[in-house]
């Protein structure tokens, strides 16, 4: 009586029924319960309620429950956002709940969905058909949906931010101003101008989350939450960062974040660019020079402050010179300052600012030198030292008096590196002698020839100078030998 095939028949029956149930439920889920279909059925009832005039009835009659998309080959986008945002360009839909509501503002008047799509401004995954996938804050999409208050960052893809009405881009205008006020250009390049301590920011907005360190960040791990947190505490987000805390308020942080997101050299067809954007691109090729003070504020302040005092920098682990200090600018020659600005100070954090490095124009460097010198009148030239120095004695004097701050071999420590080639070539003897004699007011450099306490005599200074001149790596050992030889016959105290 026990049929061995019975169990297999039952098995087949149960398996087939389970398969049918699964397939049918999948079909229902896909064809009837899909999020966008539910949304469109809702929209249909809204259309029916609003079909009070001819045009309303016409729109209702033409409405089909179907997938809709704005495919823009010129921008490389396929945006199906309009599948759920059906009322996006219907002015009657201002009072209905999302996602049926009209787009706020008058932006779509000049940027019709059929020509621009959605993701070119809002980012996100255009081909998605559910809101979560469109938002795309997961790891698989580089540019997730921007929060509404940050969408203005993308306006500058096609517009010159300075020509847009400021009320349309409130955060961006603040961000642009802060970038200059906080002297971000001291360390970062933008448009080929700026320092080299930090990364260039020209394509900061194009970065995806995978290019940023997220380990020290609370979720959500989006580029803007990274920027936001980083502006509040750079060292906390990127360990070992040299960036100082930019002392900004929370709204200002947001503004800087939006400004960073707007830095995206995105390639869009010329026909999409506003005329002012094209003008801006040409203007960038021929920039108008800034005044000396503007240059100082935008490109020097972050490190040198107002320039009147020397400052110990915790992150650089050294003093930053007081470049507008009276005792420097009254003695330093124009050529010396120009060489230091144009070529930088190798071995320190001071980068080169010449036209091919930091991107400052020659007029601007002249201007900023004028600005540096504006605080003090040039001192009367000191009588030239006719003594010949003994580099050997100079070395022992240097080790006793100078190496504590300037480092062994003048390689720099807390104080500037005086062995560096730019200093050696640009600083005239007179400048060095005067600095040793009188010190630097406002810095840690003391005067070594105070009338009341002359630590070094003229001959000592000549010896130190002779030693310092051997430090120039370009002159090398031969020069050391020569200096020692010429110094030897005239030895002895003055």
């Amino acid at each position, binding site marked *: 009586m026990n*049929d061995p095939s*019975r169990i297999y*028949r*039952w098995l*087949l*029956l149960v*398996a*087939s*029924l389970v*398969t*049918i149930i699964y*397939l*049918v439920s*999948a*079909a229902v889920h896909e064809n009837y319960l899909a999020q966008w279909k539910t949304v469109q059925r809702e929209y249909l009832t809204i259309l029916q309620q609003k079909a009070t005039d001819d*045009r309303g009835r*016409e*729109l209702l009659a*033409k409405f089909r429950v*179907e*997938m*809709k*998309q*704005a*495919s*823009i*080959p010129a921008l490389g986008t*396929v945006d*199906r956002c309009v599948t759920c945002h059906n*009322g996006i*360009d*219907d*002015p*009657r*839909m201002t009072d209905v709940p999302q996602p049926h509501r009209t787009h706020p503002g008058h932006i779509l008047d000049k940027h*019709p969905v*059929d020509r621009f799509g959605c993701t070119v401004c809002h980012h996100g995954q255009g081909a998605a058909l559910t809101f979560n996938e469109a938002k795309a804050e997961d790891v698989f999409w580089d540019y997730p949906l921007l929060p509404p208050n940050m969408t203005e960052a993308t306006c500058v893809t096609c517009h010159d931010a300075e020509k847009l009405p400021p009320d349309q881009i409130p955060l961006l205008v603040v961000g642009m101003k802060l970038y200059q006020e906080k002297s971000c250009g001291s360390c970062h390049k933008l448009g080929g101008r700026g320092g080299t301590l930090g990364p260039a920011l020209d394509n900061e907005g194009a970065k995806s989350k995978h290019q940023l360190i997220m380990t020290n960040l609370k979720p959500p791990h989006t580029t803007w939450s990274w920027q936001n947190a980083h502006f509040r505490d750079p060292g906390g987000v990127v360990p070992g960062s040299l960036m100082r805390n930019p002392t900004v308020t929370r709204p200002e942080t947001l503004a800087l974040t939006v400004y960073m997101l707007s830095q995206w050299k995105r390639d869009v067809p010329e026909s999409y660019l506003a005329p002012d954007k094209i003008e801006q691109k040409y203007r960038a090729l021929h920039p108008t020079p800034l005044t000396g003070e503007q240059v100082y504020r935008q490109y020097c302040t972050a490190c040198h402050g107002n320039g009147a005092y020397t400052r110990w920098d915790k992150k650089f682990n050294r003093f930053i010179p007081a470049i507008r200090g009276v005792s420097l600018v009254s003695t330093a020659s124009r050529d010396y300052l120009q060489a230091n600005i144009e070529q930088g100070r190798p071995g320190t954090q001071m980068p080169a600012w010449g036209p091919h490095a930091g991107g400052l124009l020659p007029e601007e460097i002249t201007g900023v030198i004028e600005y540096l010198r504006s605080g003090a009148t040039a001192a009367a030239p000191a009588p030239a030292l006719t003594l010949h120095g003994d580099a050997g004695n100079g070395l022992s004097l240097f080790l006793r008096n100078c190496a504590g701050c300037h480092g062994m071999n003048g390689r720099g420590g807390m104080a500037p590196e005086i062995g560096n080639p730019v200093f050696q070539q640009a600083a005239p003897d007179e400048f060095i002698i005067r600095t040793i004699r009188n010190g630097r007011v406002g810095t840690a450099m003391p005067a070594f020839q105070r009338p009341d306490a002359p630590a070094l005599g003229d001959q000592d200074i000549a010896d130190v100078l002779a030693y310092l001149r051997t430090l120039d790596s370009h002159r090398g050992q031969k020069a050391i030998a020569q200096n020692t030889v010429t110094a030897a016959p005239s030895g002895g105290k003055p």
Partner: protein
Amino acid sequence: MSRLDPPPLNRRSFLSLASLGSFFAALGTAAAGMLRLPNPAVLPGPVRRFKLGPPEQFSAGSETPFAEQNLVLFRDDEGFYAISSTCTHLGCTVARSKDGFACPCHGSRFDSKGSVIGGPAPRPLPWLEVSRAANGELIVNADNEVPEGTRYRV
């Protein structure tokens, strides 16, 4: 019980029939699902619904060529109509001539309503569907043809 009646269905053969039947039903459902796959829900082509501006912009008796969209919008006393300016022969863009349209490529000629009056063109120039967007602007849907003579009244 006559001999013509089917034999009584016992429990065992019912089980066989049900299991086989459900198996084929499952197979059929799966096949139906798979047959839908080659039919895309939406095509990847660019949008061919063009917003051309508010109707007040076009005066009665006017004709406005839209070069980028490859169509000409007409307004006469009866209403609006749009004629495609893509030649039905090999797809060149036709130019407006004295008596209608003329194709520069192979010399097809059409009258002012788009009917062929000469040359190799196989079909008249299609009339395109005109409607209005929710904000009142005229919309021409270049994917939808309408019969010649159809007007859209505002």
